[in-house]
């Protein structure tokens, strides 16, 4: 995608971005936004990010009740390739992954713990079913945010204090070895108890 847009067009796009996201923008404005995104990679990226943030903060939505199978089928067949092929709507249709199956597998899906085939079935379902797609986006946003939580740098003093503790103990051990009878037993018992007692 080439960057063809002028700075003004980008500014204009950014100014009505929230209306477009909030679905309050008129049709013409949406069309203009879509056309601009086609031309400008920065704004396209900005839009995608804004969608994610929007979903993230509207995030963690109420659980969406699983839709009736018929509604899912309507939506899936309407958008599926070959949707115009004849089929008998009165006959039961076997779905690879239904809404309930998808919700059941969502945790594994997010954790990337599914076999490739099942994963692709899940992706297909989420693409065809908006409530499940939204649910997946919210969970994915949560997952991504958790994965990016900051890590602290462990202070170097943990190491120096640990080494000092081990040195002290090793210096003590030969003394215990050399001590006769009960003194030796007491020294050994003490060294065993110290870590427990802290």
């Amino acid at each position, binding site marked *: 995608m080439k960057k063809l847009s002028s700075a003004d067009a980008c500014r204009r796009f950014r100014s009505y971005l929230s209306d477009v996201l909030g679905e309050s923008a008129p049709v013409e404005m949406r069309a203009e936004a879509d056309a601009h995104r086609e031309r400008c990679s920065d704004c396209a990226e900005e839009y995608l*990010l804004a969608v994610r943030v929007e979903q993230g903060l509207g995030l*963690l939505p109420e659980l969406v009740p699983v839709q009736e199978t018929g509604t899912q089928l309507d939506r899936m067949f309407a958008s599926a390739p070959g949707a115009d092929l004849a089929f008998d709507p009165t006959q039961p249709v076997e779905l690879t992954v239904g809404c309930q199956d998808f919700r059941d597998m969502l*945790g594994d899906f997010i*954790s*990337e713990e599914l076999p490739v085939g099942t994963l692709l079935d899940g992706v297909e379902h989420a693409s065809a079913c908006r409530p499940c797609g939204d649910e997946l986006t919210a969970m994915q946003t949560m997952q991504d945010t958790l994965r990016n939580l900051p890590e*602290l740098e462990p202070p170097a003093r*943990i190491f120096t204090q640990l080494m000092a503790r081990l040195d002290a103990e090793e210096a003590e051990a030969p003394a215990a070895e050399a001590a006769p009878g009960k003194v030796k037993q007491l020294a050994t018992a003490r060294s065993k108890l110290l870590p427990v007692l802290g």
Partner: protein
Amino acid sequence: MQSLAIMNTPEPGVDQEPDVVTRAVNGDRPAFEELYHKYVRKIFNLVYRMVGSAQEAEEVTQEVFYQAYKNLTGFQGRSKFYTWIFRIATNVTLQYVKKKSRHRRDTSFDDVTDAMLPPTGTASGTDPEKEVQSRALYRALDSAVRRLPPNQRAVMILGPIQGHTYEQMAAILGTNEEVIKGRLHRARENIREFLKEER
């Protein structure tokens, strides 16, 4: 919808590990130091998220490695060293959290400061409104994880935050994958509840 990569976090440098582990088990202190440096960051952050304070995390992390050193001779290589040391870390930390909650009902956590949060990487890079929103999301999730019961907190930290697989988590926590899945599911549901409360 974002594309999903099938990716499990690899255990860091395990291929080169047996030799250094063997040397450490045989009492070679430099080998143990090498293992310390390899794992301290992940373990310190695991402990920090569990106990909630950097100062306490220092003490507990030191105890984790102290216990590992003292018990090295008991490491028989039936599990990977990586799993073994993470098991010690979670056991010592859960023990500490339990002990602490017996003595003090409220758990005090460090505040998350803006300096501790990673850059949010917005495309514009300078949109302050988006930056604030993204930081709010980080904060909300961070504090929600802190409110989880210790067992659920442990799986959320090991899995979604640190990227361990179900199999690795089950080995570390000494349980099976079904239990891990169940805990993760409950943890995610709890987080959603906590976030709803904050909205």
